[in-house]
């Protein structure tokens, strides 16, 4: 088997191994065979193309053509004429699938169901990467650079998986790439001839290939190990590689079947809100004339990055929601019974949490659904809402009383609540100062909470509802970014207010669920909930009442400001308090839905929201980042080349001219003989590339100047600028090269890559040497002890 064929196989293997990074993106493994099939056909196309001696330019074209044929056959087989030939209908079918795949991307957070559309996109993407890797590694003979397209396979999962891709896929991908390098490396070593083996036992000759291999393996092993281990110890790089794929759900270790590994509910929320068109998720009938929000789950842990959910834990036998749901701690005051029958619409909602009204007491639902009392979440570890046809909930809704809330004392907080939800959190000094300023003068916990809510809802403070939230600059806290930028949607308002509540000493958390939705025009008891009704809000805990929701989000369809959360009309308004006027405006909102949707305010917020803040923008911008990053990486060698050239000519002398000439010839694939003197090297280059006339003369001028600068007595630098000569030779070299080589010289200048690689290699060699020395120093006392024994 030729080296090219070996490289083709190794490239395929590397892509196949890198596919392991996609596992956490999908539910189940049904997609795998089709995706690997795409890699397989690309490899087969490469092998056949090389056997037939196809021109190099055509090889990627053949790969793409075969890939298209494969995708047509697998995903649109019925539309093919004679079962083989693609027709116009094939394109239609594929286009429809692609669209449905894009919808799936927009609709679902990972893991996504392996629908045909998604699998088609994935197979096409992975097949495309396989073609690219083949192009770079085999056609362009730049094996190390082939790591870049392989990185794309990791870029997508690490961009969308909240917890990163995990260590194993990374290691597998790295091994794939290393095997590619190994094939190329052994071929390069092989050009020197068969390495000699020592016949003497115990001898350690320098050229022993096994020792060479050992060094290579050690370097590879050390590099992969360092890449996996180091991020865990560097602050700022989170533990993504070491942690599993359980996002905000913590480690998940030891949780057994009675707990669910939760994906970040906020990510799901964001995905729902940013869908281009609202999709109906639920339809429900309720006897509550003013239905309140539907809760899914809560996020109670604040880390530096934001709010995360703890593992949901419940006893499988005793916590089934079908039996009964215990009353939460501290749940007191007046209650209102609520009965609700909920019908998930066509399985569009696919989460592990069951949307239920506040205070469920009994849930009639199929399957094992459990109650986590701490977060007050109904969840299932084994199924999702997708499989449900309908379920009924009986709830007892707390009707908080403003006076009771105002009487609640901090010292009345239940220890189990304060331990989980009342701990001090680590926020920036700005958040602390702002919180202190907002709650200044408020005596009770309740008043503080109300003041905080008012701070966000008051139009005077300039907060704007915008699906394109204020983004933190590097190193900036997301909470700070929002408080300063004042642009965001419910996620930012809810998480920020919850954080400020904690700062103010009030137990808090972020709840995720839905606003009541749209009332049916004919049947007033029926409401439908769409993706755009997804919502997040803060909850605060007050002794005697329990968890109470607040609504700091200024304007969003269907959201309601609870009556208890606005001050009573008699509350004196501090004239210097900028939040004052809003109190008067929302004071009358005693019922549901409340009049928080001040038409002026709404108009103001809508007009300031830019047209691009339409839902899809955020999700698509995240996907756009990947090609942009890849493009940046691809353009990097070009930039480096230009910078190096500019730096050389900043202080022109014959030696830098010679360096530039050396690099230029290297870039068009010329191999210099290191034993040649400048004059001999120039002669050999001219002979090899057929340089004659003025070009050969220019080349000779550079060589003579170089040898004079290098070998003549000091102070005899030749006059004249050598740059035109060097440029003339470069142009001639490029003109005499095939188009592909010219392109490669311009974009992937091998001299630059070699220079960067040498620099990096030197650093790594230094590092491993220090590591070796350190190990030796550590083990020396042990060895000495062993020797003395």
């Amino acid at each position, binding site marked *: 088997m030729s080296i090219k064929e070996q490289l083709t196989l190794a490239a395929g293997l590397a892509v196949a191994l890198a596919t392991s990074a996609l596992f956490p993106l999908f539910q189940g493994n049904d997609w795998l065979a089709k995706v690997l099939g795409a890699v397989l056909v690309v490899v087969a196309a490469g092998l056949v193309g090389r056997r037939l001696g196809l021109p190099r330019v055509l090889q990627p074209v053949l790969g793409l053509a075969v890939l298209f044929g494969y995708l047509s056959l697998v995903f649109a087989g019925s539309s093919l004429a004679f079962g083989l030939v693609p027709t116009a209908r094939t394109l239609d079918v594929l286009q429809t699938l692609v669209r449905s795949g894009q919808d799936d991307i927009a609709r679902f957070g990972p893991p996504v169901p392996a629908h045909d559309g998604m699998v088609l996109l994935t197979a096409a993407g992975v097949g495309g990467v396989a073609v690219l890797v083949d192009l770079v590694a085999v056609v362009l003979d730049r094996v190390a650079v082939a790591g870049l397209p392989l990185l794309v396979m990791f870029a997508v999962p690490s961009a969308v998986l909240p917890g990163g891709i995990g260590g194993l896929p990374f290691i597998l991908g790295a091994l794939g790439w290393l095997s590619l390098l190994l094939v190329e490396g052994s071929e390069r070593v092989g050009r020197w001839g068969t390495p000699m083996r020592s016949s003497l036992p115990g001898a350690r000759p320098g050229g022993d290939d096994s020792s060479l291999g050992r060094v290579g393996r050690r370097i590879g092993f050390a590099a992969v190990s360092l890449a996996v281990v180091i991020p865990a110890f560097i602050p700022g790089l989170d533990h993504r590689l070491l942690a599993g794929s359980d996002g905000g759900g913590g480690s998940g270790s030891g949780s057994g079947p009675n707990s669910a590994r939760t994906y970040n509910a906020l990510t799901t929320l964001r995905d729902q809100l940013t869908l281009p068109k609202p999709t109906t998720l639920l339809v429900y009938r309720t006897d509550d004339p003013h239905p309140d929000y539907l809760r899914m789950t809560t996020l109670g842990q604040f880390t530096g990055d934001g709010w995360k959910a703890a593992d949901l834990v419940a006893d499988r036998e005793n916590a089934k929601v079908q039996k009964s749901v215990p009353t939460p701690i501290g749940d007191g005051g007046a209650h209102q019974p609520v009965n609700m029958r909920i019908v998930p619409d066509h399985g569009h909602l696919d989460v592990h949490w069951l949307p239920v009204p506040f205070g469920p007491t009994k849930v009639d639902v199929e399957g094992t659904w459990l109650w986590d009392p701490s977060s007050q979440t109904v969840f299932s570890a084994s199924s999702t809402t997708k499989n449900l046809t309908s379920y009924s909930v009986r709830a007892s809704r707390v009707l908080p009383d403003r006076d009771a809330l105002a009487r609640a004392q901090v010292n009345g907080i239940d220890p189990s609540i304060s331990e989980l939800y009342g701990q001090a959190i680590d926020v920036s000094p700005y958040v602390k100062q702002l919180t202190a300023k907002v709650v200044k003068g408020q005596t009770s916990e309740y008043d503080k909470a109300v003041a905080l809510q008012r701070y966000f809802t008051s139009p005077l403070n300039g907060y704007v509802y915008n699906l394109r939230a204020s983004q933190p600059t590097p190193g900036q806290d997301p909470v700070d970014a929002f408080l300063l930028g004042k642009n965001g949607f419910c996620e930012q308002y809810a998480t920020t207010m919850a954080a400020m509540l904690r700062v103010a000493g009030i137990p808090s958390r972020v709840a995720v669920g839905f606003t009541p939705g749209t009332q049916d025009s004919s049947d007033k008891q029926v409401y439908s909930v769409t993706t755009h009704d997804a919502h997040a809000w803060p909850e605060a805990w007050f002794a005697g009442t329990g968890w109470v929701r607040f609504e700091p989000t200024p304007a969003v369809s269907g959201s309601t400001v609870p009556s208890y959360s606005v001050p009573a009309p008699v509350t004196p308004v501090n004239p210097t308090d900028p939040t004052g006027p809003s109190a008067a405006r929302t004071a009358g909102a005693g019922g549901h839905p409340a009049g928080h949707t001040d038409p002026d305010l709404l108009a103001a917020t809508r007009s300031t929201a830019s047209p691009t803040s339409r839902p899809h923008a955020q999700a698509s911008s995240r996907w756009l980042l990947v090609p942009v990053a890849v493009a940046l990486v691809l353009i990097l060698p070009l930039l480096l080349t230009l910078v190096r050239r500019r730096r050389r000519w900043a202080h022109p002398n014959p030696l830098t001219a010679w*360096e530039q000439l*050396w690099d230029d010839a290297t870039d068009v694939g010329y191999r210099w003989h*290191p*034993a040649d003197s400048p004059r*001999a090297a120039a002669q050999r280059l001219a002979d090899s590339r057929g340089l004659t006339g003025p070009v050969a003369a220019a080349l000779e001028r550079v060589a003579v100047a170089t040898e004079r600068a*290098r070998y003549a*007595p000091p102070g005899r630098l030749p006059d004249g600028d050598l740059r035109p000569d060097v440029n003339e030779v470069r142009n001639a070299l490029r003109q005499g090269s095939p188009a592909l080589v010219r392109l490669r010289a311009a974009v992937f200048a091998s001299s630059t890559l070699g220079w960067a690689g040498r620099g990096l290699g030197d650093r790594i060699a230094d590092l491993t040497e220090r590591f070796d020395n350190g190990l030796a120093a550590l083990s020396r006392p042990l060895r000495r002890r062993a020797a003395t024994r």
Partner: protein
Amino acid sequence: MARPTRVGPEALSGVAGLDDLLEVASLIRGNIERVIEGKPEVVQLSLVVLLAEGHLLIEDVPGVGKTMLAKALARSIDCTVRRIQFTPDLLPSDVTGVSVYDMEAREFEFKPGAVFANIVVGDEINRASPKTQSALLEAMEERQVTVDGTTYVLEAPFMVIATQNPIEMEGTYPLPEAQRDRFTARVSMGYPSVEAEIEMLDTHGGPAALDDLEPVADAVTVRKLIDIVRGVHVSADVKRYVVELANATRSAPELRLGASPRASLQLLRASRALAALEGRDYVLPDDVQTMAAPVLAHRLLPTAEAQVARRSTESVVADLVARLPLPDLRKN
């Protein structure tokens, strides 16, 4: 102290710089080429050795012009020339000289041997016994002769041009390593090309061409040329390259004996002379590469395996030159 060598006539010209060196060298070269046709590289090499203050060993089969080259070079320079025909019965004192008791003066008088000349042509040096060959050793390296405890300094320039037949020929004693090491360069004449041989038949059919040669330089001139060569600049990179090349021969797997430090020194001297003959006052790696095989090859001993594989030491040196990287040009 006796100074038995004859002082030559006044310098032909007042040699001062490279241009004069080139002029004189071209005169000598032209003179020699009148009798040695078609071998410019051999003539050049003998000039290099002359200017590098070295000794030349010409090795080849009989009848290709070894002695002719030696004599032509000697004749081109107006200086003392002695020729020693080495035979198995030649005694060391024939080479160095002998002290004879003068009855009238009642004292020992030194009768200088053949080595007391500016140019000594040792013909078929490997036909003499090792003892006689060794008598040349001190003279070649130290440029002096010690007889009966008295040391006689030899006049500069002093150059031994020895010819020898390959050791496979009958009746020869292989030259000891120590003595081979004292020759700056070894050169093979090789058979002339057909054209050169035809021309030779014409030229040499008539009166002896060698006898027509007139001297074109004298000892003083040559001494001045040697001074110029000594002043040729050698950069640190070139010096390192020379040492690395010598080192490479010491670790080459094909060689049993590598180049000595004396070889490095002579390689550098020869490179200087070559640079001067090319009109440069600085040495290039190219000069070192050109001189490597003639200067180094005859000092090296191949391993048994290399001998079985019929690898000449010249080809080993050529391989090393082609493989050994120059000090990296791209690093300042």
